[in-house]
């Protein structure tokens, strides 16, 4: 059975910004990059658990507001030289609606 869920309209997420989706397994940060690509990561930096949703989005990366780690939005991997990974969720955008695989 498919686990795809509709979470919001694309235009409800600010460009180069994010929204937070509360989730039983921990909040999910849903990002919208400048090129309208949408990504979803567990809203916890692999460093010390800072809320990635609150970071500055640039390219396909976000900078954690806590200690400045950069995290790749498509994989959840921390950028070198840091190591760590935030769980990622598959996303798709259809007809202006954002879907997540939960």
């Amino acid at each position, binding site marked *: 059975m498919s*686990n795809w869920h509709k979470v919001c309209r694309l235009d409800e997420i600010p460009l*180069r910004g994010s929204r937070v*989706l509360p989730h039983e397994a921990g*909040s999910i940060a849903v990002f919208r990059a400048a090129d309208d690509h949408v990504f979803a990561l567990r809203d916890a930096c692999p460093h010390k658990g800072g809320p990635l949703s609150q970071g500055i989005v640039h390219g396909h990366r976000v900078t954690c*507001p806590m200690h400045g780690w950069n995290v790749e939005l498509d994989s959840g991997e921390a950028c070198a*030289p840091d190591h760590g990974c935030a769980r990622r969720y598959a996303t798709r955008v259809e007809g202006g609606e954002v879907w997540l695989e939960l």
Partner: protein
Amino acid sequence: MEKQKLVVVGNGMAGIRAVEELLKLAPDLYDITVFGAEPHGNYNRILLSPVLAGEMTLADIVLNDLDWYRNNGITLHAGKKVTKIDRVKRLVIADDLAVPYDRLLLATGSTPFILPVPGKDLPGVIAYRDIADTETMIAAAANHKHAVVIGAGLLGLEAANGLRLRGMDVTVVHLLDWIMERQLDQAGADMLQASLEAKGLKFLLGKQTEMLTAAPSGRVGAVRFKDGAEIPADLVVMAAGIRPNTALAESAGLYCNRGIVVTDTLQTYDPKIYAVGECAAHRGTAYGLVAPLFEQAKVCANHLAQHGIGRYQGSVTSTKLKVTGIDVFSAGNFTGGDGTEDIVLHDRNGGIYKRLVIEKDKLIGAVLYGDTADGGWYFQLLKEGRDIGAIRDHLMFGDAFANNHVGDVGHAGASQAAAMADTAEVCGCNGVCKGTIVKAIREHGLFTLDDVRKHTKASSSCGSCTGLVEQILASTVGGAYQAADRTTKPVCGCTDFNHNEVRQAVRSMKLLSLDAAFKALDWRTPDGCATCRPALNYYLISTWPHEAQDDPQSRFINERAHANIQKDGTYSVVPRMWGGLTTPDELRRIADVAEKYKVPTVKVTGGQRIDLLGIKKEDLPGVWQDLGMPSGHAYGKSIRTVKTCVGSEHCRFGTQKSMSMGVELEKMLFGMWSPHKVKLAVSGCPRNCAEAGIKDVGVIGVDSGWELYVAGNGGIKTEVAEFFCKVGTREEVLEYSAAFLQLYREEAWYLERTVHWVQRVGLDGIRSRIVDDAEQRKALHQRLLYALQGTVDPWAERTQGVARHEFAPLPAPIDINGERHVELA
């Protein structure tokens, strides 16, 4: 598509540094082949002297081992000499190999200058250049007694010191009258010579070598001079200078003139061929020090990577002698001349000599002997061309004294870094100890402060340990380290423009949005990064108020959410209390809010107001609504508070009404964004209970009016504010304060506090534009008032629904059948 082919001739520090920089920018662009004459990977040539002296091993100085080449897919031909370049067929020929190239990088370094005297080819006569020479010297020291080093430059002295430490009887022969004449004046050189003599070295100055004579064994046996004298020598080290190694380039028909002539993009006369390092002559100079080579490598890599940004414009260099226990530093023009002045400190018995050469209130050269702790600081002043007029009296006594530091929290002395234990904590913010930093520097081959910050986090938070980290870098990598030049440093990796250039472009090109700026300034990334976006956004809105677009997504979360994010992701709320004044009604509302939202911590701040900590983000608009007080901007690069004492309204000592003066100032500045946070204080008498001496603008009431102090700082480094001027009326307090802050807003770099801005540009210049120039002062004041016209309280706006998406979480998700799943949330 087949990759292009890059061939690098030269496996030394410059060539491999260029390859490393290239791999960072474009890892997959080229198939890379490297030729090296020595049968090793790349090593830190500068540290051969400590190896010779027995303080380090060869393993310690390896920068890139053979695994590195393998892991990066680089073909290394170590120990193969390139004999020919065929520029028509684009082939590099070495012995039986012919390797084709699309781009060729020459980094052939230099060759030692060998005196053309009879006997120069005898066994036992060597130069000092590479690992093989070092090993020859170590072997000679084990079996022979007398060593003669010809040339008393940096390299010669280091060789002599090493040989002496290995037990040889060493004489240093020099053509000129004093040693290290290219780095030292005679007074400094004499002191250096005396302390080297105390270590057992002998010197023969003003001596010209005529010939080297053989011993019966066929090995070199003696050095004979023009004046007929002769001294025994079982080992002769020629250290009389280096020559750029241009033979290969010349044979290929490339234009050479004391080096392979290159442009600002490090291209030779054949645009497919680049040259970096000691072999290259840029604007007539071939550099023999490592820092310029790294700068060249960076620019060269950028062009090889086809980014095409960046020009190499030459380097200012400094030198340091690596003889343990002897500290020598020199930079710039240390001999002086017409129109220059000297400040000299000469303590012969104490073994300290310092000479600073000054021209028109700028430091242009420095020689330090015995105490070189401030070498880095002088070099920084020199490179940045800082106005030292204001600190001239104290300049000689160093950074800590001249700038009144409480010493980097006691981290001033350079010798401190070397003496520290590996377990000693260096960075108190991130808990990084010295051993961790040294290990990272060695393992990853780090050379810059930024590299160390990235790999260890040391000095990446508050920055107060920066000086210490720089010292550790300097003592670990030796002369390869040079302090970053802040004035020319690009804003971040997204651009080659520095803060000044970006500011100017925003103004002159009338850039009104981030996208316009990225486009006009050719930003490398499509939408910048977390470093440049907030800076650019500030430059736009401060330069073009009411016209430029403010982009919330380019602000740090605190300024976007108008509250301070805390370690657990909750926020803190600090409502504004004008001048630190409040009412029972406000206090009651604060108490009610604290109870209603179960605020875990209520704290009185240092800025005379109340902090509610631990508020959930989605509760923020409700909290603000219930408080009914304006934002305290305790979260922004903005006006924070105006702290006041009670003043003559109540105080029996007060001479002026400081509370109402503070309220007026705070109301004038409400909503002001600035390069960094701005704090003010107003005291009603010289007892100064509001602590105006450590504020960005401090106002102290006296009987006859008000004294204004500027550029104080109570934070990371306590800096006492400097007296700015005295004024008579309250209106003048407003006008002068506003003018100073507006100039700061218009000209300081993003994240530069007033104290650092004033130190950089000099207070005299600021004073002449504000205190001495009424017209300019009034214009600045008006510009600030215009910028702040119509400022609305961000909290009030948000309780009305502005930026609602910022605070509201998304509703529960809906599955493909249209069912909402609240249980998932």
